[in-house]
């Protein structure tokens, strides 16, 4: 199947494994243990148990009636990942990975985090299973996501500020990888998105595919047919790939990934690697990257810490190149407007990341007719962003 990576972890030319030799045995072990788990009925049962009883899945597929009326076009459904325990889709993946960490006998987990959602989701499962946990977070993100920092600490995790480079998600990821090189014998690195070296992009995608699988079942029940469009935000791209992947072979279902245009795609302050980058290697895989002419990685910018990343998952790069996915971008301002609108019209405060997907839907829905169906992945809730948005509402 075209959407499954080859044995070298390649999606087309993207993906692979670009790491220092020290990490190879741990990645091989992870791949082996994951492949075994995939064939193990007990593993699936255990994961399904935690997804249901602990995470609160399945999440609802909410018909956004007032938003649909307001826009006057396609019917809009929201996949409510914000209702998942800890407030975002991130727990789907961390539950899967913590079970693997237990299988491998690792005593400690580490993670990078941007907005803090993945950090919280990792700290949560570490608490649930009694593992030591350390979260690497850019100093700038610690500043803008102080609520999540406190949540992680409450959950018993150590939060280590990263002060190198741009002090955001990119540097937190680099620092987590550096820690892992030094602690690989007793530590599992819980990567939070569909990035990193083989087998992470495939494994994280598989854990997040529950989003698309549930959506498929629900929409068939509610509408008797598949949607015309799936819309999701793309930073590293885990909620979007989780939504898209189960529909890969349903060729009439269009995928729209929404990147962060920041101040605008014509400025140098955005996070739109698929729109404005070119292929390169960062954090263990080949993918579209924001980089200068020499290959130095460029600073990304987004109002939302979770989209503030110069790379993107390799499977998205592949979808772009084969034309399976369309990748667009919306600005900080459009995202904040959507953040406010969804709150007012549907009574749902979305995460700023997810607000990017809403913002594009506001443009797309009116161009379609009433028979069309759009499903938007509402990947997280916006409580964490309320403080930041209240500060900038005057500024934007």
């Amino acid at each position, binding site marked *: 199947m075209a959407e499954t990576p080859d044995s070298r972890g390649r999606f087309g030319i993207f993906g692979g494994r670009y790491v220092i030799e020290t990490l190879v045995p741990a990645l091989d072990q992870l791949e082996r243990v994951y492949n075994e788990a995939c064939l193990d009925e007990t593993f699936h049962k255990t994961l399904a148990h935690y997804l249901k009883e602990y995470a609160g899945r399945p999440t609802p597929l909410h018909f956004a009636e007032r938003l649909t009326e307001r826009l006057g076009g396609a019917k809009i459904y929201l996949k409510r990942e914000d209702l998942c325990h800890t407030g975002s889709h991130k727990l789907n993946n961390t539950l899967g990975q913590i079970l693997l960490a237990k299988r491998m006998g690792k005593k400690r987990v580490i993670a990078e985090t941007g907005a803090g959602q993945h950090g919280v989701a990792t700290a949560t499962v570490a608490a649930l299973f009694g593992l030591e946990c350390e979260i690497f977070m850019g100093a700038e993100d610690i500043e803008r996501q102080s609520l999540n920092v406190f949540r992680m600490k409450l959950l018993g995790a150590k939060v280590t500020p990263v002060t190198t480079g741009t002090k955001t998600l990119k540097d937190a990821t680099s620092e987590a990888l550096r820690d892992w090189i030094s602690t690989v014998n007793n530590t599992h690195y819980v990567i939070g998105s569909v990035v990193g070296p083989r087998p992470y992009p495939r494994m994280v995608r598989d854990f997040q595919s529950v989003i698309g699988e549930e959506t498929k079942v629900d929409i068939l029940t509610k509408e008797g047919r598949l949607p015309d469009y799936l819309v999701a935000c793309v930073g590293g791209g885990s909620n979007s790939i989780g939504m898209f992947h189960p529909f890969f072979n349903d060729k009439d279902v269009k995928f729209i990934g929404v990147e962060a245009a920041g101040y605008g795609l014509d400025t140098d302050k955005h996070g739109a690697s698929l729109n404005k980058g070119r292929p390169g*290697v960062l954090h263990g895989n080949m993918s579209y990257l924001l980089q200068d002419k020499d*290959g130095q990685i460029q600073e990304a910018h987004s109002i939302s810490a979770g989209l503030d990343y110069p790379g993107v998952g390799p499977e998205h790069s592949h979808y772009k190149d084969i034309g399976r996915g369309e990748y667009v971008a919306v600005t900080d301002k459009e995202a904040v407007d959507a953040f406010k609108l969804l709150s007012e019209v549907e009574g749902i405060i979305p995460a700023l990341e997810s607000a990017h997907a809403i913002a594009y839907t506001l443009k797309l829905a009116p161009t379609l007719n009433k028979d069309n169906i759009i499903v938007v992945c509402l990947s997280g809730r916006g409580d964490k962003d309320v403080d930041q948005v209240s500060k900038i509402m005057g500024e934007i």
Partner: protein
Amino acid sequence: MSRIGEAFKKSNGKKLLIPFITAGDPDLDTTIEIIEVMVKNGADMIELGIPFSDPLADGATIQRSYNRALKKGISLRKIIAAIPKIRQKTSVPIILMSSYNLIYSYGDEALVRDASKAGVDGLIIPDLLPEDADELISYGQKYGVDTIFLTAPTSNEERIKLVAQRSSGFIYHISLAGITGTKSAVAAEVKAGIERVKEFSDTPVAVGFGISTPEQAGKISGYADAIIVGSANVKIVEENINDKELMLKKVGNFIAKLKKEI
């Protein structure tokens, strides 16, 4: 035989010293002077670090030196353009150490060709694994540039065999599970690690990461064919960044001490 191969052959069992230095920190002219001083004081080869924005295997010292050099506009192209100037001063082997993205961005074949033409003898690309390096190895053979791969304390037999089979010039053994310039190598572990590599290969083994003092270098050189010292040199540059004369003097003294102990 490559210049690197000859250096090991000529050594007659004497251990070689390979200091690492960041290219362009604080500027390329100073880098060239540092190399001259290193060679004068006993460096047998030079490992030249190519500054990258996100070096994953490097600790804070080398990261800071890369940032200093990048702020002043250093690039792989400028470094390669400066190699002939180094070649005018010394004939010791020059090895470039670079993250793969810079090479991919330059173009694999163009980079190997241009580097070879400029006088580079070998390439170390820590994030390019030997199983993914078919093309690079073939360009290396075509243009006469050694491709040096790494073994780690975590490497199993299968990995060591693969690295040994694909490395030319030497094998770079990482002394410890860690990044550069943070922890100290433990002699007994390094000994065991190198012995495992030697079991599967006749290629010379150089050991690096975690060697920062002449005493350590002396101890560990007993087990390896060459010693690589990196962050300690970069630190001397950093601490004397505003006094070039003193910087060069201290680098020279340090290299001489290392040389004496190995």
